[in-house]
């Protein structure tokens, strides 16, 4: 009995240190996010003076007002929402279309096609040949370039295929076939209803990918009216190419400069907000997807 208490006392020390260690991780992760969130609600003056440390100083919504009044930002936002919805729909449909046949043991071409798919994970044509192809296809400055070149991610096909292999029993297919069910019917009536969780994972993986994607737009879109949010963000946050002077005539030049600084903080929050909001609800699914991918990646 005494021995047991002694051990747990030693353990208490351990648990204290361990929890303290975790607390450091927690703070280091959360603090920058809180800082940006608080800054976005502070007055331009407080930001310029460096007064914001933890909570908003001189609370104001000016930054957000500036963000939502800026037509450049709003166009980018709308475009990204459109690209994300259209792109994700195409992604998920094509991924299921590829993954199901590849999961069927009786599909003779399975291994050959799998090889063709998997090889692209190892080797690609690289930047210039891809660029020339996209240009020759006339996709430059075309909204389709945000949807079509990334229509399938092979890794996601493999994840989905693995899920089908381990969750859609062969017996079910046999039973359905005896009842005269075609493959199309089987997918519609059995496979898709039984694999809602992996479909959810795919929707999330692809949607977050579209929301955050930068590279394709950067290479192929130069028309401002087609810019997705990430390109707008780059202009404003990184290239400092925002012209706020046209936003409100009553302000002085210095005021505009300060508003621009505040706007950056608000913009960072607004851009990350949708994904972050979605995230707590779908966290489990994400983790599941990563695990399937890791086991048979």
């Amino acid at each position, binding site marked *: 009995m005494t021995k047991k208490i002694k051990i747990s006392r030693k353990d208490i020390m351990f648990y204290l240190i361990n929890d303290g260690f975790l607390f450091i991780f927690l703070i280091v*992760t959360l603090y920058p996010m809180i800082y940006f969130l608080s800054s976005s609600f502070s007055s331009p003056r407080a930001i310029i003076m460096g007064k914001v440390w933890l909570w908003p100083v001189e609370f104001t919504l000016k930054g957000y007002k500036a963000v939502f009044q800026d037509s450049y930002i709003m166009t980018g936002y709308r475009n990204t929402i459109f690209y994300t919805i259209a792109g994700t729909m195409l992604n998920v449909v094509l991924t299921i279309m590829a993954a199901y046949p590849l999961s069927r043991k009786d599909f003779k071409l399975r291994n050959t096609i799998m090889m063709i798919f998997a090889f692209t994970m190892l080797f690609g044509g690289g930047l210039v040949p891809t660029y020339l*192809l996209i240009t020759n296809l006339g996709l430059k400055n075309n909204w389709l370039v945000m949807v079509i070149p990334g229509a399938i991610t092979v890794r996601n096909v493999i994840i989905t295929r693995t899920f089908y292999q381990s969750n859609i029993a062969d017996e079910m297919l046999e039973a359905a076939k005896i009842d005269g069910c075609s493959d199309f019917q089987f997918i519609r009536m059995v496979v898709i209803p039984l694999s809602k969780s992996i479909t959810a994972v795919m929707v999330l993986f692809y949607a977050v990918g579209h929301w955050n994607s930068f590279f394709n737009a950067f290479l192929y879109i130069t028309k401002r009216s087609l810019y997705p949010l990430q390109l707008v963000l780059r202009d404003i946050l990184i290239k400092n190419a925002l012209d706020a002077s046209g936003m409100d005539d009553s302000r002085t030049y210095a005021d505009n400069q300060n508003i621009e600084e505040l706007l950056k903080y608000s913009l960072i929050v607004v851009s990350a907000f949708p994904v972050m909001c979605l995230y707590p609800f779908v966290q489990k699914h994400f983790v599941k997807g990563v695990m399937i991918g890791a086991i048979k990646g």
Partner: protein
Amino acid sequence: MKKRSLAHNNATTSPVKKNKILKEIRNNYQLFLLILPPLAYIIIFKYIPMYGVQLAFKDFVATKGIFGSPWVGLKHFDRFVNSYFFPRVMKNTIGVSLYGLIAGFPFPILLALALNSTRNKLYRKTVQMSTYLPHFISTVTMVGMVMQFLNPRFGMLAEVAKFFGKEPLNYIGIPKYFKSIYVWSNIWQDTGWGTIIYLAALSAIDPSLQEAAIVDGAGRFKRIIHIDIPGILPTIVIMLILRSGRIMNVGFENIFLLQNQLNLPASEVISTYVYKVGLGGDKGMIPNFPFATAVDLFNSVINISLLLSMNWISKRLTDSSLW
């Protein structure tokens, strides 16, 4: 598909079985129909550019296209290897990657071990949820945050510097700080997400081992050393091997967005260099398609050989591999 139906045809003649065969052909036909669009996509968008890689061995003549342009052998590779940029780009690519690997690799393991040993479920969930969050911030937003943070006029770091009575510097413009900025912002973003695989490995450890150790009087720390760490060692080894297989594979976006004229000596890596020589970059340089393709191919070949050899080592050592 054809072979099988032929075999069946030879073996059977009865109408019932014939019907079955027809049905099977039709069924496979449906599967084939399903996979046709994805397959077409892969061939058009992945394999045609691969065919275009021959550009690396040619001189590009716009009027003749990729396939009609004359062959020049290894001229472009030769030029790259002997160019002024070669040592710089190689050094930066390997340097930033190696730094990231050495500094970043232990964090997810430590965090996973700590998460696994805390007794309070709610606390564990909170830390997990919070540390996963930064993973979903886009590269552009992340770089924007870094820029704001390092802003010499009113960034947070400038305030800290002022607090200690130092003159704030334009940190992003100083080459010697570049690698640290890149590596540590990545660590901040991906440590939490990186724990997933280790947590899974930890949860797969047989609980009876823990129970036996408790009976033997081992404290929680002892159990980490003697049970948890050996339990996830294979996972650690695989992750390490795979990461080192990607040592020459530094992504474009993050580095490119952090780049500016001042930090270029430390920040130019292969992928950003390929973009600049190939597509002209921002400053309107004359694009050199074949040269960029050659540099890209050079990098790809190194990547593949590294990955394959590391995968082979992993197979020999831990019996597990990528495929």
